[in-house]
């Protein structure tokens, strides 16, 4: 029998406790342990970026972390970007308006990567945005609408902050 490890983790500002075996990945723990299925699994070898979440504010590939490793840490997933029945974040609205998604499978990972970007660089240009999401693969959109959505969102966040 594989040894179980007790973990406590904050996800989207909620405390969770659970038990995992050592090899359970963070992605699988979020999706099946906590039923937060917004984070998606696309490759399980750290290239496609669909599984991107924020751990202590930094974007990581959750398929390359073990669940045990977030014990005591703060995790943010796509579900935390907007309240359940509340308004979408500027980034999410901008994705809708600029058609930054088609099948939606890479989208949560994109949104988390871009959330980190906009926190650290509030006024990114096109090239910076493309570099930021170069680790998130999209097979549907060709990326330009994602860039446009991010530029729009950045402008809205800046406007909000200057008020």
């Amino acid at each position, binding site marked *: 029998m594989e040894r179980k490890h007790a973990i406590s983790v904050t996800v989207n500002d909620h405390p969770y406790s659970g038990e995992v*075996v050592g090899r359970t990945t963070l992605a699988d723990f979020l999706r099946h342990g906590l039923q937060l299925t917004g984070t998606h699994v696309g490759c399980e070898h750290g290239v496609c970026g669909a599984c991107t979440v924020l751990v202590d504010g930094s*974007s990581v590939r959750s398929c*390359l972390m073990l669940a045990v*490793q977030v014990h005591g840490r703060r995790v943010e997933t796509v579900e935390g970007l907007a309240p359940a029945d509340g308004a979408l974040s500027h980034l999410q609205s901008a994705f809708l308006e600029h058609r930054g998604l088609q099948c939606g499978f890479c989208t949560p990972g994109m949104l988390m990567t871009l959330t980190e970007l906009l926190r650290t660089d509030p006024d990114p240009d096109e090239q910076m945005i493309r570099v930021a999401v170069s*680790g998130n693969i999209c097979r549907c959109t060709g990326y330009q609408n994602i860039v446009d959505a991010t530029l729009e969102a950045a402008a809205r966040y800046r406007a909000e902050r200057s008020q």
Partner: protein
Amino acid sequence: MKPPPFEYHAPSTIEDALNLAATLQNAKILAGGQSLMPMLNMRYAFPDHVIDLNLIPELAYIREDGGALKLGALTRQRAVERSVLVQKLHPILQEALGHVGHIQTRNRGTIGGSLCHLDPSAELPGVVTAICGEIEVASVRGRRSIPMAQFPAFYMTPAIDEDEIVTGVSLPLWTPGHGFAFEEFARRHGDFAVAAVSVLIELGRDRQISRAAIVLAGIGSAPVRVAAAEQFIVGRAPTQDVLAQAAAMCRDVEARADAYTSADYRRYLAGVLGGRALTRAADRARAHH
């Protein structure tokens, strides 16, 4: 693609980690996970034990000490990329790190992890070789330093014992304002290097090159120092002609071939990238002079 079963250990001190390394059989060290986790997920590795070093704060540091920049093995690549101290002392590291994977890779990936993994196409081993870094290694039996040139034993295998853990890297300082440049060609931004060149140049008071390091990555199974080119440019002024000749020497190395890339093309790239790196490094050295 789920990892095979293993016993997970998370020591909180270096001493505990060394004890585990000494006593556990078939154990692997988990640092940033950007190399080990894909191997586990793809079931290319079957360790019975995984020793996670991420809970040992003493292993992550960036400091200047005794004429060297010292980086703890668990220092995140992203932290090095953004460090003001690193920018001051070894800016070539930051230039190279911009090519290492993507932000997510560098948020978790560590200096020690990349150096131990010794992927032939990785950027950091080449840079550390150029700087003439020393790898600091510890075990229950004591501590020692291994010059980077001697660190690769063979393909993707460092010259350390089963019970040894890399604790940090010591990067001796080059003179302030030294010329530096890192050039890489990859198929896409963030991919492993098809070929990469690290160049460091010091200019003497006579404006001639007094010290040089020219190291290729991606060309062989370990970083390749182009000693002939280094020796050629030392004692000469960094003119266009001199640098071009040195670049040509970068082509004159043995290169590996694989399913994607020919040896000829790698050698050709070494020459082109070497020329670009030499030119930029020389420009920077002159600018500071």
